[in-house]
Each structure stands twice: as structure tokens, then as C-alpha cells.
């Protein structure tokens, strides 16, 4: 399969990339690893006139601590996250979840930021970022703006990013105190999109939940943040009753459709079960961190 013809620019600086987008942003797609974009080009679901390949811009591949956050650059690949000691220590949820993303070969090329900007409702990173309350750093010729992940996804493959902007990094708050997370994914085979997946992160204050994040994959027009379920956890101990109530609220928030991977009712129930399992796993990890 061949993509339709397109112009190709591989700028060597961010300034150059931003000025290209200022002129032709409406007709352009930004590419990092291309692991989501190239399949779309080949199927001709996407036919941009211009590809701006940012892979040759230096300084965008770092994973580093930055003022209470971990900052993950636009060119940091899934495999870089997999091997990051910093993330294994600070946000083990991400390092665990990365094994569920595509396959090892795709992980050698694809990036976190590219995946989030691609905004596939079946994407794994989007719901993990929702659970972790990440924010995106977007640059344009006019300067920088920080976009909270909550509200970033507008619909399938649609975000609030403007055509003249490039997301240069994602910033994730470093949890304080005892914290833990988990990612549960149901897939038909390695590398498949999720039938359903659920991302959970909790931070404890003593025995009570101080912060909670729950993100849902493949059960709506975008990755979803189960806000009512999150709220139901705040200030409570994670006992069976509280967990069951949050799991029910998360299942209520899911808007799955019947498809080849399962019925809507089945998927809602998987959300419920995964939130329960996820919260129990997250609690166990948070308690390990405290011990």
C-alpha cells in the first residue's frame, strides 16, 4: 500500500518547524515516530498535503524531572519509557502499562506524545494520562501554552490542539507520599487495540484517598475520565464497598458500542471489573510504597 503523495519537511530546529506550521498548518500533519500516522496514510484515511517530521529536532527526547513533574519530550519513544529508571521509581504505572502498548517493534518507533495527540479513543496512553492528570506543553510561533489533558480530547482523532502548534512535551505530576497505579487491558492478541482497558492511580493520605484518577480506553468517542468515580474515592478508605461503588460509577460513565470485540453491555461490565481489580492493585502498591 502506498500513501497518497505529500510534501515532506524534516526541519532541524523547532523554530523552523513552527514557522512551517504557521504557513501551512491547516494542510499539515506533524509526525514523530509515525506508528499511528503512517498506517492511516497507507489506508488513505489521512491525506495531508504536508508531513512535518519533527524527529530531527534535537532536545525533544528527554525524560526528566522538572519542578514537581516528570517531563517527557515529544520524541521519547515507548521503549524509552519502558527503560526509564526515573519513571520506574516515580510513576511505575507508566512502565507497567507500556508493555500493553502495541508490540516491541512499534514501541521502538512510536512516541507517548504522538500517541496522545493522535487521540485514538482506543489508544492506551490517553486514558493513562487522564488517570495521572497530565498536561501538554504546546508551542507555536506565538509562544507556549499548557493544556490540561482533561478536555484535550474532543472526539475520535480530534483534540484542542491548533494547526500551528506542536506538543513538545507532556508533564505529569509526581505523586507525593504513598501512591500506586495499575493498567488492566483486555485484548484479543498482543498488539491489538483494547476491547476495554482501565487505568487507575491513587494517592493516599494515611489510609484515606487523597487523589484518584481513573481513565477508560475503547469505551467512548474519546478516552474518558471517570470523574464521578474518582470523586467517590476522595476522602475514603479503599474498602470493598467504596471500591464497588466507584466501579459502578465508572461503568456508568462508559459509553461503549457493540462491535466485533464484544457487546456494549459486556464492555461496561469489564470496566466495572477492571476498576475493582485496578483499585485493589493500586492500593496494594501504594501500601508497599509506604512500607
Amino acid at each position, binding site marked *: 500500500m*502506498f500513501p497518497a503523495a*505529500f510534501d515532506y519537511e524534516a526541519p532541524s530546529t523547532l523554530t523552523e518547524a513552527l514557522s512551517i506550521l504557521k504557513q501551512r498548518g491547516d494542510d499539515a500533519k506533524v509526525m514523530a515516530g509515525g*506508528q499511528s500516522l*503512517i498506517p492511516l496514510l497507507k489506508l488513505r484515511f489521512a491525506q495531508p498535503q504536508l508531513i512535518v517530521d519533527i524527529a530531527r529536532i534535537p532536545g525533544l527526547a528527554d525524560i526528566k524531572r522538572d519542578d514537581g513533574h516528570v517531563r517527557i519530550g515529544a520524541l521519547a519513544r515507548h521503549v524509552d519509557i519502558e527503560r526509564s529508571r526515573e519513571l520506574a521509581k516515580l510513576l511505575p504505572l507508566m512502565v507497567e502499562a507500556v508493555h500493553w502498548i502495541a*508490540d*516491541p*517493534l*512499534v514501541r521502538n*518507533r512510536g512516541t507517548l506524545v504522538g500517541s496522545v495527540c493522535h487521540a485514538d479513543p482506543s489508544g492506551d496512553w490517553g486514558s493513562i494520562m487522564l488517570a495521572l492528570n497530565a498536561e501538554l506543553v504546546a508551542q507555536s510561533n506565538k509562544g507556549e501554552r499548557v493544556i490540561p489533558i482533561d478536555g484535550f480530547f474532543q472526539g475520535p482523532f480530534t483534540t484542542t490542539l491548533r494547526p500551528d502548534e506542536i506538543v513538545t512535551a507532556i508533564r505529569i505530576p509526581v505523586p507525593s507520599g504513598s501512591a500506586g497505579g495499575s493498567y488492566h487491558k483486555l485484548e484479543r492478541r498482543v*498488539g491489538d487495540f483494547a476491547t476495554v482497558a482501565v487505568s487507575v492511580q491513587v494517592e493516599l493520605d494515611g489510609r484515606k484517598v487523597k487523589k484518584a484518577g481513573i481513565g477508560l480506553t475503547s469505551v467512548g468517542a474519546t478516552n474518558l475520565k471517570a470523574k464521578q468515580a474518582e470523586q467517590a474515592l476522595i476522602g475514603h478508605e479503599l474498602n470493598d464497598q467504596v471500591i464497588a461503588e466507584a466501579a459502578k460509577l465508572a461503568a456508568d460513565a462508559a459509553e461503549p458500542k457493540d462491535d466485533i470485540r464484544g457487546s456494549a453491555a459486556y464492555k461496561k461490565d469489564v470496566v466495572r471489573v477492571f476498576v475493582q481489580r485496578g483499585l485493589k492493585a493500586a492500593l496494594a502498591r501504594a501500601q508497599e510504597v509506604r512500607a
Partner: protein
Amino acid sequence: MRVNGVERSADVEPRVLLVDFLRSNLLLTGTHVGCDTTSCGACTVRMDGDPVKSCTVLAVQAEGREIKTVEGLANGAALAPIQVGFHEEHGLQCGFCTPGMMMVTSALLERNPNPTDDDIRWAISGNICRCTGYMNIVKAVKYAAQMQSEAAKAPEHAAVAGGGE
């Protein structure tokens, strides 16, 4: 780009995929096109050392990079350990997935010279064998690992066993 250690260049349209560039422009047909949808791994080559699916890389993205294909494994007539492993353990039936399997596992053995069965199965989880000969593929990789570690212990044989790695 450097392909199997040799500088190669051509003018191509930006939409040309790396796998088509290798096969059609450079006539390196050892790299196979299987599914053409980023699923099967038959087109796996190594790009700056990392195994990648060359049906999902544009040739222009590989500009200036180091590419290694299955043709680059053997050193003249001396097969690389991974090739010997596939031969000795019957790691192939139809052979269609084999170039991809060998490229991905040659990378695994560089990072992890003594992989467990689990490590091997994880490493090849992006590569599909249509004959479902996975048992023998795992054995082939273990054979190659053993061969490499013996070669490392006895440096005088390394020249024979070293292959293109």
C-alpha cells in the same frame, strides 16, 4: 543511509516506504512484505540497532540512519549464530517470517545474551509465524545464545561464529 555497512542513496518520493525502497530500489528482497499493516513483522529490519517494521517507516525517515537487513547477518560464507540456530533447530518451515524473526532476535541477543523462554516470546511478540513454528523458533534463539556465549568464552572460535554481528 547506510545499509548493511554500505552507503546507499537514491532520490525517492517521500511516500515510499522503507521496505519498498530496500526491495525495489536496492533489490534487497530478503526483507519480506507480509501484512503491510504493521501487524506481522515479516518486514522487520534494524534501524540504528532497533528492530522496526519497515512497512511503517518512510524511506526518507531513514535518511542518514544505519539500516541492517537479513542480508547483513552472515559474514561471507560464515553464518551468524542466529542463522545457525534457525538452521540447526529447524526454526522455519515456509521461511516467510524468518528474516524478521532473525532481525528481532539478533537485537534481543545483543541486549540480553542469555534470554529465558519468556524473554524470547516477549521479544518476538510483534512477529507472526504463519506456520506456527514458535517452539522451534524459541529453541533456535536459545541455540544461538548458547553458541554466542561459547564463542565469547573461546575467542579463537569467535571469528567463525561471529558472523555479521
